[in-house]
């Protein structure tokens, strides 16, 4: 077994290569039962570095002569063997080993999972794609002129689809885009688990890229997104470069002012929410493939957000998109942009003219989305500040959704963090030292209190209420007896979020309708009132932030939210006003409130009860 190697970069300008610090040497020697002095370890470390470099240099020869660009483990092993060093056993695989960072501490390691030989032997999904090596000849250039075939077509190796595959392709696409919902479900399920359709991937990706041509048809868009989801979840598929195409299709659904959204009765909001969820899912499970895109997507979201000409539904998409990318994305893009955006939004919301009704309704959607995103930001930030060390969450590693997800995609191997921090995990990975470039280098984080202050100035009490509501509203939770105790509660927060969070589930729904089992539900329902029992993270920070004078009349906004809802339900406003000064002791109202808010603007579409708007708005709780 290989132990974890800590590799630090010594002063960059001096050295251009990685060094093994002496701590690692000591660690290894200790694991072998030898005590080394610091001096000796340092010497050894230096020598090891040199030998490694030497071996690397000679291994590159083998790569060059094999006419490859990628250095493989085998090359390195050969170099070792020829310099009479014992080769490393067990790593001869052709494919690259995942090299993963752990975000706490600068720890990197090569993933070395245990392989269950029995499973491997009995597995029925032996790849069938390994065709016999063959030589094909084609006249590429006639008389040195012109290419007979256009460039960039599907490579000929793939063009030869077997009869079966072709049939499969036709049936699956027909089923998914067809009328029968049951058939669609079956097809999606199969797409998600079929191990033998790798050759069809480009075709499916092509079909999916057709989102642009069906932007008037919500139903079709939805189906295509489901197709994306199935493909992404299929553990036997290597998406490779196709993932970009998928992401761009998803982004299209999130951001574009779809033709379908002209009709206010069309629930394109849900579609956007779902697409955002999907985006988050892709980043979560295929982080290695799309890490280069992260920055690019942030930029395009930012661009949409800062473009006042764009319709509000695009803005809404940008906000939920940012939300899906994690609270860090919100912090870096949405939050700094908020003051500027706010004035525009306010203008829309303040216009009570009839002609503006529709736009205003949209504005409320955006408002709600921003609120949700921002609250999650505050919560996560508080969390990250208050317990940087307690990321382990050892408490519930195997809770339903999480386990199911892990099993479903062995190749993707989520890091050992709770899924709640999916997006966060990726973001921090990207920004971490090992990540692909550190974007936004000039960006400096705003301290939490200041941030809260500013946000409070926008949202007023609606913000505060929601924040303290989450963990501590309602009756005393019966199960954990001493939640009031500081360390205890501090530890509980993450648990809560972990369970609440939506792990993309296998069944295709982002999250089961009833909030995930036991713990979460009870906790949420049975949380105590604000002020009575302040919860760890928020207690430190928020009380302070509570008192700065709200400049803009914030309650007005909370009114408006309620008012917006009353548009459909006719009682939101009253409820809201009565709520803010003195929260009712009964646990029911806040809960309904919490449930209602996300429902903003949802046109009755019972079919998708688990839709994303619901989901994404749930997150911050």
């Amino acid at each position, binding site marked *: 077994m290989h132990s974890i190697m800590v590799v630090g970069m010594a002063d960059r300008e001096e050295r251009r290569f990685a060094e093994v610090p002496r701590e690692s040497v000591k660690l290894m020697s200790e694991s072998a039962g030898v005590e080394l002095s610091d001096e000796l370890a340092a010497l050894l470390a*230096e020598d090891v570095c040199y030998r490694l470099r030497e071996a690397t240099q000679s291994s590159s020869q083998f790569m060059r002569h094999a*006419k490859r660009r990628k250095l493989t483990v085998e090359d390195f092993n050969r170099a070792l063997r020829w310099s009479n060093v014992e080769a490393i056993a067990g790593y001869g695989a052709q494919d690259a080993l995942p090299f993963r960072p752990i975000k706490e501490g600068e720890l990197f390691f090569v993933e070395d999972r245990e392989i269950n030989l029995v499973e491997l032997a009995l597995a029925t999904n032996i790849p069938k794609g390994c065709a016999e090596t063959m*030589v094909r000849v084609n006249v590429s250039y006639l008389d*040195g002129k012109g290419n007979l075939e256009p460039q960039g077509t599907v490579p000929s190796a793939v063009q030869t689809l077997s009869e079966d595959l072709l049939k499969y392709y036709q049936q699956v696409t027909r089923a998914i885009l067809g009328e029968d919902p049951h058939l669609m479900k079956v097809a999606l399920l199969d797409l998600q688990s079929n191990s033998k359709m790798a050759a069809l991937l480009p075709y499916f990706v092509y079909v999916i890229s057709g989102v642009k041509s069906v932007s008037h048809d919500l139903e079709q868009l939805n189906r295509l997104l489901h197709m994306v989801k199935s493909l992404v979840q299929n553990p036997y598929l290597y998406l490779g470069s196709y993932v970009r195409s998928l992401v761009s299709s998803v982004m299209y659904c999130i951001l574009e002012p779809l033709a379908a959204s002209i009709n206010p009765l069309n629930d394109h909001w849900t579609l956007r929410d779902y697409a955002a969820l999907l985006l988050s899912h892709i980043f979560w499970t295929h982080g290695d493939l799309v890490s280069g895109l992260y920055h690019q997507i942030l930029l395009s979201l930012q661009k949409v957000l800062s473009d006042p000409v764009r319709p509000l539904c695009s803005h809404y998409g940008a906000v939920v998109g940012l939300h899906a990318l994690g609270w860090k994305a919100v912090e870096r893009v949405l939050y700094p942009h908020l003051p500027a955006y706010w004035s525009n939004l306010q203008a829309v919301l303040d216009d009570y003219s009839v002609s503006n009704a529709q736009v205003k309704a949209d504005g409320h959607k955006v408002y709600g989305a921003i609120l949700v995103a921002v609250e999650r930001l505050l919560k996560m930030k508080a969390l990250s500040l208050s317990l940087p060390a307690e990321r382990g969450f050892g408490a519930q590693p195997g809770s339903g959704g999480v386990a199911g997800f892990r099993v479903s995609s062995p190749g993707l191997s989520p890091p050992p963090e709770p899924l709640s921090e999916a997006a966060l995990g990726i973001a921090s990975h990207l920004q971490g030292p090992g990540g692909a470039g550190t974007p936004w280098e000039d960006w400096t984080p705003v301290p939490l209190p200041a941030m809260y202050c500013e946000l409070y100035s926008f949202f007023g009490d609606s913000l505060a209420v929601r924040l303290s509501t989450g963990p501590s509203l309602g009756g005393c939770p019966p199960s954990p007896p001493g939640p009031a105790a500081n360390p205890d509660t501090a530890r509980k927060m993450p648990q809560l979020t972990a369970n609440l969070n939506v792990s993309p589930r296998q069944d295709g729904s982002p999250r089961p309708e009833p909030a995930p089992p036991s713990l979460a539900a009870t906790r949420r329902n049975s949380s105590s009132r604000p002020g009575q029992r302040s919860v760890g993270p928020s207690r430190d920070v928020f009380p302070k932030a509570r008192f700065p004078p709200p400049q803009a009349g914030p309650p007005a906004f909370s009114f408006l939210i309620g008012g917006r809802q009353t548009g459909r339900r006719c009682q939101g406003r009253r409820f809201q006003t009565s709520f803010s000064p003195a929260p009712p002791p009964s646990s029911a109202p806040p809960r309904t409130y919490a449930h209602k808010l996300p429902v903003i603007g949802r046109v009755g579409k019972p079919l998708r009860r688990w839709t994303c708007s619901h989901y994404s708005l749930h997150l911050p709780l």
Partner: protein
Amino acid sequence: AWYILSHINLIEKQRETKGPPNGQVDLEVEKKEIKTETSNDGSGNNNANSSSPGSTSLGATSKSPTGPAEDQQTLLAVLQFLKRNKLNESVDILRREAGLSVEIDDSPGSASGGAGSGGASNSTVDGGDTNSLLSRVSIAIPAAPAVTAAPVPPKVTASGGEDQPDVNVVLSAYSQQGDPDLYPLYYNGLKKFIESVLDCHRAELSQVFYPLFVHMYLELVYNNHEVEAKQFFEKFSGDQECYYAEDLRILSGMTKKEHMKGNETMLDFRTSKFVLRISRDSYQLLKRHLQERQNNQIWNIIQEHLYIDIFDGMPRSKSQIDAMSGSLAGEAKRDANKTKVFYGLLKEPEIEVPLDDEDEEAENEEGKPKKKKPKKDSMGSKSKKQDPNAPQQTRIPLPELKDSDKLDKIMNMKEAAKKIRLGSDNLPSICFYTFLNAYQGLTAVDITDDSSLIAGGFADSTVRVWSVTPKKLRRVKSAADLSNIDKESDDVLERIMDEKTASESKILYGHSGPVYGISFSPDRNYLLSSSEDGTVRLWSLQTFTCLVGYKGHNYPVWDTQFSPYGYYFVSGGHDRVARLWATDHYQPLRMFAGHLADVTCTRFHPNSNYVATGSADRTIRLWDVLNGNCVRILTGHKGPIHSLAFSPNGKFMASGATDGRVLLWDIGHGLMIGELKGHTDTIYALRFSRDGEILASGSMDNTVKLWDTLKAFDDVELDDFTAATGHIHLPENSQELLLGSYTTKSTPVIHLHFTRRNLLLAAGAYNP
């Protein structure tokens, strides 16, 4: 008979071991002179006067930087001399006067190899110092440019690899102590000086920077001044030419004395002298400066580790210098390329008329006799007149033509008659052979001359052969079945084949490592493959079995190729030696040693009398098959060379390297005559069209490019002066010469081949 011809390298090896005795002789001469020197010691630095580079080794010794240490050395040397001459009394007296302890001179000599020629063990007096003296002296002599230096014996790494007995000796040359803090000062001083000289000299003198830098750095490292070495490196590594970046990276990793042992790059640098070509004027300028400044440190390095090839005439321009430099050990010495090379083609064998006539009669019906007639005449006339540049027909013995070979020759001629004349306005068609599903990793490809078979070497140790014509590959029947065949029948050749084994492709198993080189024999009966496992294997394409495994390279064999006349083949590998073999000998006939790094590719000259090898030391060498001598050293590439091709007329050669450039060479003059820029990645394949008008190059960057070589060769004007000095001015005309660039579909091009009718075939593995 072959063995008698020569194992010249063995002799050279012996010469190498003889080295130390020579040094001993020098030492004696020197001591006598030292004696005289000690008498007039006051005028210490008379070395400044003995400056003529051809002067004796005296200059080298008396130039040691520090006073007292040198005195002691001198004393010791004198003592030694006295002792050898049995003047024990004087020894005692001197010793008493100098206050030296007795034990010093009794310490046994260690490192100087077989030094004790007279059996006396007192050749070395004190461990380190005298050793360095010894090695310095013995090395310093050929350093003087005026002395016609005996070619530095090529270094053959012992096949065992680990034991390099001379390492210590080699390294000890660095043991001279200088104040480590002064190194940057020295270097900087020289830098300032060179920056201040006239423009015309600056470029030339700047050549000194890199070797000086490396040697000073190594000296610092060797003497355990780790910190100073690092500082030195940081301070000055940025000044070096960018094409040395690769070597600098290796150097930068080397910070301890222990690292130096066993580092091949370092050893190469030490054992071989870095060769610089500098005009006499520039050299004088440099020498005067160093002597004025008494900059002994640098002067010592120049004397000991550099070979300065001085020429008379105009200093070269920066671009001229850049074109030629870049190799691991500097440029080639001018006299290294003086040997005459017989680059002409051998006379075509007379082919029996009846066979040809029969064919012609067959053709007659189609009414094309006219076309063939002149063709045949030209062939005939060519064969009558011996090319003055061609080697003797029997210079090296060649196998006799078999009937089947003659048939093939006729086929070849018939095809050649239908050949398309290529040119800048008539480009070839390109067919691409794509290896699909080559997840075993395609590492080498070859295509038979008649383009009927294609073979691939793979990283999974297999060799696969495909027939690209409708004719399938068949095995010969088993011995038992063969005995039943009527040997008198006309179609016996058909009958011996086992129809049941017919298939489109065959797999040859036998190697135990990736197959890096592959080559068909001209008669298509054999296939050679060279592999990482250190062997070259000969396969029969009749039985599809392995016939011989040639063991000789004990390290990976990077490339192998059959002679155009069959029978011989050449191989080169990680052991830095290229070997010439004959198929019926299990041991090599020749060893071509001299490269300072891996031999990465090997090619036969069309007349089979020469072999060209490209190496990771960024040089190309041409070797004479007859005597094993290196007759050309061509420098100019800035990266390991991975492809070579001779023009069909044998006069020119093209080479491609990892730097993405193709260089064209005139073999007769040993000159670079063209540089073709355009590729962005390693060039793995080069091939001239059948008439040599067009050069095709294939690269990792997924393109095939065609170059107008006719124009390239025409543009070169070779007057006597450039021919004599080798200072050619390369025209910057890559873009004019580039006739076309053709991209593949993510398929690196690793082999190119012109069919007999000038259709271009390319091959590579699809790499999704």
